[in-house]
């Protein structure tokens, strides 16, 4: 569904009118394409200490011009604020005010990324206040930014450092066009498992080279619900990043599924994921054709909206069966199978409805909140091993599903985010591809919202 307002407001005269009247002025977002320049202008690394210094050195190796202080009048592609040593709310003033100067100089599509430690990991009230304070400040910055710029945070947990391969992977993702519609979000990073650090250094550019063009090369990925919409785009983006894709959808969607599979040079597997033997059939197919299954994206989902007062059993049951029960059953079988890689990645589609609830979607919200619960519990079980599981929660995404929302409601829903527009399926897909990559090895049990900092569920 085309956002005609967005197109219109990005032409000269309507842009002036919108500005005069104070109407929303959504920008065309900076999105990733292979070979992207991470930062055409210098990047500010604000904050003091060894963590900030080390990070600045790594960024230099990424072929980025680095500034440690704002130079008057010089445009910036991004501002990275390193606050890993903040121990009192008083420590925030200098770096935040420096950031204030920087945001005035951000280019359209610019980035603000804050790095700080988890408030849950300190017993000192002042330190916790400082850390939690950064969270609030960065969310506010995200609300204030315009012209398609975003602000996000990386929360360092445990032994994770500012230059841990996963920290760098997350930073690269947030600086890149891949995170165009990720705004006001905080990604928790734990120290990358030691055994994979060497591989990861290459994967994330910590070794001083750029990140590889195809971070998923040689991987095999299963994407459910791949015949249309977000699922088809996930298949496309994973394939672009080098993965061999097994596109899964119900037999009735086989015609579109074949088109998707042929488009990404993958294979089509017609399969109802609610069937008891769904996981076995996937494992059999992947086992025979590719040997190892590296990535599973649980994307298939349905809505059967009704107010709870009018809800019937078929509506409730079918949503639960497809959106969460099938995932639980499949994960159990996958984890028991030697075909599923020891460094396997599971990425599950949640929804902002699962975080905030939504009128008429008690069944859907139960299933999507259920996904979040499942991901957190499974992540705890994975902790310390090579596997990870994460969820991506899309906000308002322009798909066939949201195109059925009545026009006025749809227009309002689009403008409710800080980016004042709906996201595209590719935005969800990019986040999934990042979580599937080696660069996200230390990210586990996270729910990353792709919502343009939507007010709903914030």
């Amino acid at each position, binding site marked *: 569904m085309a956002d005609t307002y967005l197109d219109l407001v990005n032409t000269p005269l309507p842009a002036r009118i919108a500005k005069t009247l104070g109407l929303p002025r959504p920008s065309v977002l900076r999105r990733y394409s292979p070979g992207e320049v991470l930062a055409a202008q210098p990047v500010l690394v604000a904050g003091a200490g060894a963590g900030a210094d080390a990070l600045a050195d790594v960024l230099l190796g990424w072929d980025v011009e680095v500034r440690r202080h704002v130079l008057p009048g010089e445009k910036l592609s991004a501002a990275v604020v390193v606050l890993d040593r903040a121990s009192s709310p008083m420590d925030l003033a200098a770096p935040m005010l420096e950031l204030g100067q920087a945001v005035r100089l951000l280019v359209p599509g610019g980035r603000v990324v804050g790095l700080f430690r988890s408030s849950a990991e300190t017993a000192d009230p002042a330190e916790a206040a400082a850390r939690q304070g950064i969270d609030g400040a960065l969310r506010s910055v995200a609300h204030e930014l315009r012209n398609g710029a975003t602000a996000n945070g990386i929360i360092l947990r445990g032994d994770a450092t500012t230059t841990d391969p996963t920290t760098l992977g997350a930073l690269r993702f947030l600086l890149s066009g891949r995170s165009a519609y990720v705004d006001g979000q905080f990604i928790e990073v734990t120290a990358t498992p030691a055994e994979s650090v060497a591989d990861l250094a290459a994967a994330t550019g910590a070794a001083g080279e750029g990140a590889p063009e195809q971070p998923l090369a040689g991987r095999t990925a299963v994407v459910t619900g791949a015949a249309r919409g977000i699922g088809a785009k996930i298949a496309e983006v994973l394939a672009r990043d080098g993965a061999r894709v097994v*596109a899964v959808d119900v*037999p*009735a*969607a*086989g*015609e579109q*599924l*074949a*088109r998707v*599979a*042929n488009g990404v*040079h*993958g*294979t*089509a*597997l*017609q*399969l109802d994921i609610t*069937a008891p033997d769904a996981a076995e059939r996937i494992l059999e197919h992947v086992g*025979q*054709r*590719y*040997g190892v299954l590296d990535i599973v994206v649980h994307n298939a989902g349905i809505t059967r909206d009704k107010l709870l007062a009018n809800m019937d059993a078929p509506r409730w049951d079918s949503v639960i069966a497809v959106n969460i029960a099938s995932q639980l059953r499949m994960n159990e079988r996958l984890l028991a199978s030697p075909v599923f890689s020891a460094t396997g990645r599971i990425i599950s589609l949640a929804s902002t409805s699962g975080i905030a609830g939504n009128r008429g979607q008690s069944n859907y919200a139960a299933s999507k909140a259920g996904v979040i619960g499942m991901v957190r519990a499974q992540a705890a079980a994975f902790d310390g091993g090579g596997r990870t599981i994460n969820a991506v929660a899309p906000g308002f995404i322009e798909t066939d599903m949201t195109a059925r929302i009545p026009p006025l409601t749809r227009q309002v829903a689009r403008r409710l985010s800080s980016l004042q527009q709906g996201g595209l399926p590719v935005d969800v897909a990019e986040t999934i591809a990042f979580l599937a990559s080696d660069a996200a090895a230390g990210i586990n049990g996270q729910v990353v919202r792709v919502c343009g900092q939507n007010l709903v569920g914030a």
Partner: protein
Amino acid sequence: MADQAGAQTTASPRTAVVIGGNRIPFARSGGAYAYSSNKDMLIAALDGLVARFGLQGERIGEVAAGAVLKHSRDFNLTREAVLGSALSAETPAYDLQQACATGLETVVGLSNKIKLGQIESGIAGGVDSASDAPIAVSEGLRRVLLDLSRAKTTQQKLKTLATLRPKDLSPNAPTTGEPRTGLSMGEHQALTTAAWEITREAQDELALHSHRNLAAAYERGFFTDLMTPYRGLTRDANLRADTSLEKLATLKPVFGKSLDTPATMTAGNSTPLTDGAAVVLLGSEEYATANNLPMLATIVDAEAAAVDFVHGDEGLLMAPVHALPRLLERNGLTLEDFDFFEIHEAFAGTVLSSLAAWEDAAYCKRVLGLDGALGSIDRAKLNVNGSSLAAGHPFAATGGRIVASLAKTLSEQGGRGLISVCAAGGQGVVAILEARN
């Protein structure tokens, strides 16, 4: 003697296997595919196969397919379909036509090439549209138009045009009539059905089994990796899962009404005109292994036969009856050695006449030159996943449907399977498939 016969067959240097298949659901003529051409449907079937096995951009050894009802512009139908598909444009292709045996014959031809080492992989199949059938101008108009193109002066042109008669302007629609007898295929079968004294009840019962077996196959998901939906159709449109002997008994006979015996052939126990396409992926064992592809069944051997239905007294669709004993003898096998029989249901009467003929000692001696009856076929082994009466019969697509379905059945249950397909012109092809294990 049997040993010697056995030795003759296995001379083939390599083994050809069925890797998998794909077809689009079959639609009734004028239904979901009313505006789809043979090329459209063949491309859809190919692209579904490519998607299933990840063959995008691959140069397949050769693709062979055909159509029975074919526009003259489709002289290179299969190659054009390959060019329109996701396969490599460097994949060679050829068209083949042997009426309703087209699909099976493409499998036989390509598997032979694989056995000889000429190709490593092949896609065999067929397509037919009774909806988008070619309509030809009359012979009179055609001659006038050709003469006109050769005429040089205006005077010659006018003179040529003057030879045109009003009756020349009516087009020739295609028929399933036999050119040498003028009888439709149904009327031919009606003669055979009557000669073998096949009852209406027996025919309806066979039709009922076909629908029930096909419905059950869908029910257990048998077709999820054999079929890709097309144009909104997700299962064969002709399938009547809820049909019954009572319902079938209410249908009026349509063929054999001018015979002395009661007419027994109805729309229920005859196949309807159908649109559809089916393809099968074949390969050498080496090809399948190198590409991590499944091997569902081995293609063992095949035999074609033809009968003189014009001057002789054999039925039009009885050629497979003649082909089978020759195939069995060459392979040192008897009917008892088979676990599954796929006998194409052009008409229920065709299947039942064939079974009756093989059971008839006198006929087998006199006509087939055997020592006695060839034997009888356990009905529980016959068309276990339904056949053409339920699925429909897009002429050239039927062979691909049967080969893929039988190969999958053999991969699931093991054993040996026989395929028998009758064809216009008094022809027929039979083939043997064997499970891998």
